[in-house]
């Protein structure tokens, strides 16, 4: 699998590490609602298909990214900075070379 890092460009998955489900919302830090914390810390939906997830580019720019990925086909639909999702791709995705 390869991930198109908005900062570094298209890179191999071995440069990244998975950093968890990006669909979760952390409860308010002061919240004492233990069900909400339990859900946040321990419970995950085992999605088949499109999944939104955090990946960190450890061996590159170290930014956390939000990757939208089909966990069945491993097709990646979008990659954004987790911190500033609105910042556009710094590099254009790789060119599709013409058929031989």
């Amino acid at each position, binding site marked *: *699998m*390869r991930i198109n890092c908005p900062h570094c460009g298209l890179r*191999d*998955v071995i440069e990244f*590490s998975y*950093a968890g489900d*990006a669909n979760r919302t*952390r*409860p308010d*830090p*002061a*919240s*004492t609602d*233990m069900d909400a*914390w339990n859900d*946040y*810390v*321990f419970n995950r939906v085992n999605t088949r298909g499109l999944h939104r997830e*955090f990946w*960190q580019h*450890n061996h590159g720019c*170290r*930014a*956390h990214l939000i990757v939208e990925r089909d966990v069945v086909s*491993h097709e990646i639909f979008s990659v954004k*900075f*987790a*911190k*500033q999702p609105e910042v556009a791709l710094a590099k254009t995705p*790789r*060119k*599709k*070379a013409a*058929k*031989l």
Partner: protein
Amino acid sequence: MLWQKPLGKRPQNYETASFWGAHNTSTTLRFIFDGKQYTGHAGDTLASALLANSVKIFGRSFKLHRPRGVIGIGLEEPNALVTVIDNGVREPNLMATMVELRDGLVAVSQNRWPSLDTDFGAINQLGTKIFGAGFYYKTFFGPFRNTRIWHFFEWFIRRAAGLGSAGDVADSALYDRMNAFCDVLVIGAGEAGLEAASNAAKLGKRVIIADIKPPLEHTKLSSLPNVRFLSRTMVWGAYDGDIFAAVERVSEHRKAGIGEPRHRHWVIRANEVVLASGASERPLVFPGNDRPGIMLASAMQQYASDYGVLVGQNMAFFTNNDSAYEAVRDLANAGATTIAIVDVRSNISDEAKIMAAEAGVEIITGHAVVSTKGTKAITSITIQAVDISGKTSGPTREIACDALGISGGFTPLISLSVQKGPKPKFSEELQTFLLPDLPQNWQAVGAVAGEGLARPAPVLVIRAETPTDKAFIDFQHDVVDTDIDLAHLEGFTAVEHLKRYTTLGMATDQGRSSNVAGMSRMASLLGKTIAETGTTRFRAPFAGVSLGSIAAERFGHVMPDRLTPMQDWHTENGGQTYAAGLWHRPMAYLHIGETIEQAYVREAKAVRAKAGLVDVSTLGKIMVQGPDAAEFLDRIYTNMMSTLPVNKARYGLMLREDGILFDDGTAWRLSKTEFLVTTTTANAGKVMEHLEYFLDCIWPDLKVVATSVTDQWGGMAISGPEARNILSKVVSGTSVENEALPHMGIVHGTIDSVNVMIARLSFSGERAYEVYAPAGHARRVWEALIEAGKPLGMVPYGLEALGTLRVEKGHVTGAELDGRTTAGDLGLGGMLSKKKSFIGSAMAYREGLVREGRLQLVGLKSLDGRALNGGAHIIENASVSEVADSLGHVTAACYSPEIGAYVGLALVADGKKRIGQRLILSDPLRSMTMPIEIISPHMVDAEGSRMHG
């Protein structure tokens, strides 16, 4: 060229263009097979050289120990597996057809004892009726279930079954790893692959062409600047994002140069893929089809044309397609005599008839081979009329021959195209599985796409009227036609069940030569088509891959080292360094004649009496900067950091979200907006990721930047009553007296004109200072301190003494922060602020984390003068030999010069309440029990007076 052909012998002075490159007789290579010396020539494979030396038997079969010869010429070979021995290192299960001959090669055959010709395991053939599919389950889980019979037979069975065995000598060869990128990856350098590569190269694309064979001398492709020709390279795995794994045999065929790897692992990222992996011929299934001397027709043809080896004088052929006729014609041109071609088809093409006529060979149509004879090699075949379903009947005829060429059609090598999951498509016309729908940027050319393959009759498995022998489908796993029948009878009809029940296609060749025949047999039993029956999925690797190439530089002596700036000083001064993760750290500095224990006890004593210096450069160091840095650290640490004054440091704890302890360390406030955070050595990377995760994903609004500066600073801790006196001798630009530098204070100054940061922190419990210098100058600072300390009795100390000092103080490290303990368990509950929320604050007080009976940190003292063992259990009753009633375990142990006894730290249930109790230490692994006393973990200076003042 014509020549007289003594069996298996080559004529003098011939030269051919070999499969393996230029084959020439001018270079003679000597090699040893099963202890016997032979000669071959440059360009030979082990198989071709042995065939030229008239060797017929190459190995014994997996289960039944039947003698087996070579049947193929390349990757399709299921039988001729050998072990190559190089400098004592054994590499098993190599196809003799793929081993390039080199001078001095030593190979042995497999799965035979004591020798190939006399093999005791062949006795298994007498019991073939019981060794059918499911033998082990039926026998040992059936009538003999719950008896000890399996234990009795296991040794014999494990010894008898299996392929080659691995050696126990460490592999001294080097392996490495390369990354490559290309516009077009061409897999296979046959005619079609070369053409595709050359077309792509002409368009200016960056091309990688990978081929399993040695370099082709006649191609100019490799000289083009935009083409990389990887010869001796097998592409074995296809992964998401068009990433391919390949292995290059760099120096297997010759002596490796200095620093040259044996194999090289390639990771190739391709924009486009051209699959040109070709096709391999498959055998026909008939009784006795595994006898040595039976060979694929195309292999016979190529051994003659490429290596000048004729494998027989009187050949016969058995086929279901036209390709065998070409082989017969070519072999006739090479001087071979063919007696007959047996063809299952009743009608054959005019072209085939012409080719047979050219070779002067009798064609016997509508017939099949129903048995073969010969003890060590084939001597004759018996044929009978056959119908379209493969059933034979009628009169039989015996034909004498010394070699039988067989052809059951061709199987395209589509493995790479289906590894990711798409299903291959069955072609009735070619009687084989063809490529699935390919992704847009893939194309297949040549034989792998089914181009130019002979069309076989749909008869692969012959059902002899009265079978006299076994008919092998999977040669490598000894799966026969009746195993398929049995699987069908017993309900294992789905292909994936069939595979696992019979082990069809589960050998090292993944059924390259056998799958289609197996599926076709099952399909006919089910009355379905092969397309409906389906096939199993091919997975990586395509063929055997050395584990060394996958481990590459991540293994042993080629792993990266992390060295502190003082590493050389340590080794020059008696430091016994050992690996802590990737770091190398000194255990102790040995004086002549000292043991490690004597050295660390001496060092620890010196620290408490005078002073010591220890290298702490490995601690994780992170700069946390920005207007919100203090707020951020308040959220990260359990205790308050925003109240920390500038030039002060504070000990801090971090929890995980679930409330369990994560790491401990210090935060140094360097300015209003800047903190230096230190972490444990082991968690340096994890803490960095933790901070980055929260800054990026959870609190993107915080204006904070975290930067790892672990490698920028060399760190050393100077501890002991004399520490301040030593520091004051060398530090300029600042006072280090108590008023200027109180406990937890920070000053900036210089030592030997190097800028340093000094924080008064104590891990040892003594008056102590951590001195940080820029990494490039750290050794100079270290040496200045050592020189200044000598007259005052200071010694360098290693990790063992550091551990002793911290055990005596009850300070925790990774052994106690084991991912299960809470701050409360370690007596640090008071550090959890109630005034703010922090990571883990919500979950830290969950019922299970605060209940009675949790393991708590305590000290231990040996009561009988013996050393405690880390990991040993604490129990109440000496008669309990098992540790089921364990109260806890030892996390650290050492000899304490202060206490004058062996002591340790332990996590013990309700430990605080047990202080003063005398219990038993039980170490079942070392069969040891000993009396101990639970003591306070703060064994030395519990009130902390030494580090203050």
